[in-house]
C-alpha cells in the first residue's frame, strides 16, 4: 500500500523532532538517550533503500511510527495552546470585542456585596 518513503528522510525528520524536544529541555540533542539509541539502531541495520531485508523494513516502520507520534503530539499541542487553552474572556474583553464598554456605577450594582 502506501510506502514509507526513504529511510534517510525518516531519520532526518526524527532527528529534527528530537532537536525540538531537546531545545525545550536545554540540552544538546546528541546527548539524549533517544538520539543515541536511534543512531545505533540505524547503523546496526544499515538502513539503505537498496537491500530488501525484513528486519530493516521493521526498523524503518518503527522509526516512521515514532516520527508520526512525535510530530502529531507537537502539532496537537500547538493547536491546543492556540485554540483551546486560553480560557474565557473576561466580561470587559468580551464587551470590547464589539466596541462596547461596561458601565461604571460608583454606587455599586444593587446585588453586589
Amino acid at each position, binding site marked *: *500500500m502506501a510506502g514509507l518513503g526513504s529511510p534517510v528522510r525518516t531519520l532526518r525528520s526524527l532527528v529534527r523532532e528530537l532537536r525540538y524536544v*531537546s531545545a*525545550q529541555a536545554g540540552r544538546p540533542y546528541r546527548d539524549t538517550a533517544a538520539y543515541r539509541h536511534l543512531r545505533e539502531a540505524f547503523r*546496526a541495520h544499515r538502513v539503505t533503500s537498496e537491500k530488501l531485508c525484513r528486519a530493516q523494513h521493521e526498523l524503518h516502520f518503527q522509526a*516512521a511510527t515514532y516520527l508520526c507520534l512525535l510530530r502529531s*503530539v507537537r502539532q496537537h499541542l500547538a*493547536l491546543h495552546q492556540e485554540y483551546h487553552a486560553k480560557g474565557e474572556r473576561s466580561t470587559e474583553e468580551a464587551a470590547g470585542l464589539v466596541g462596547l464598554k461596561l458601565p461604571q456605577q460608583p454606587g455599586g450594582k444593587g446585588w453586589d*456585596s
Partner: protein
Amino acid sequence: MWRSCQRLFCARSPQAPRLCPAPPVGGPSLSLPGTARTYTPPTERKRFYQNVSISQGEGGFEINLDHRKLKTPQAKLFTVPSEALAIAVATEWDSQQDTIKSYTMHLTTLCNTALDNPSQRNKEQIIRAAVKFLETDTVCYRVEEPAGLVELQKNEWDPMIEWAEKRYNVEIGSSTSIMGPNIPARTKDTFTSHLASYNMWALQGIEYVITQLKSLILSMGLIDRHIPVEKAVLLSRLEEEFQIQHWGNVEWAHDYDLYELRARTAAGTLFAHLCSESSTVKHKLLQD
C-alpha cells in the same frame, strides 16, 4: 503524616495541586454573585525535575526523574520490559516544558494501564472486546449515497478487506445494511487465536489502537506493518475527509482531532511492537 511523606517518592510534588478533584486555586471559580464568572483552565503541575534517565532493575527498565523513581497512578514501580520503550517514555517526560501535560504522554499512559490494569481484565476479555469490533468494523460499513463517497469507500476500503482476507485466510465482506456485515464464526475464531499469540502488554496496545481507529482490519494492517499510521488514520476518517474536501477544513476541530488520533494510534502501534519484539540482538549477531 509519615504516609504522606512517603508519597514524596512518587512522581508528585507536595506543592503542586493534587490530581484528585479538589478545586485548585486558579481553577474554575464557584458562581457566587459578584465574583468573576469567567472560566480559566485548571493549573497544571509544574515540571519539578531537571533530568530524566533510565536504569535497569530486576523487573525491567525504570525511569528516574532526577533521583526519584517514576511510579504508576496506583503507586507501583514503573517498569517496562523493553529498553527502547523506556527511552521513548523518558523522552516524553523530558519534553514537558514548565508544566506537565499528561494528555500528551500517550506511551506513559499505555504503560500505566498495562502495569495497573485498573479494569482488571484478563487476556480473554481483552481479545473478546477486540474481536467484537469486527462486527461493527468501519471498513465494512458502506453507505449507499452520495455517489462520490460510495466510490471512495470502494476504492480505498476494498483493498484493505482483500488484504485481510488473504492474509488471514478468512471471509469478511462488506455491507450496506444497518445490521452490518455477517461475520462467520470461523473468522472470529481465526482472529481470536491470532491475537492470543501476543502477550498481555502488546494486547493492551492492540486493543487501544482498535478502539481509536474503530476498526479491527485497519489495526491488523498496522500491526502487520502493511500500512503506515498516517494512511490508517486517513482510512479510518475517510468520510470526514470526504466532507472536508466538500465543505472545507476547520483547523481547530478537524486538524485537532486528526493529530490527536494520529498521536494515539502511533503510540498504540509503537507500544504493541516494542512489547512483542524480543530478538533484535540476535539479528545483529547474525549479520556479522
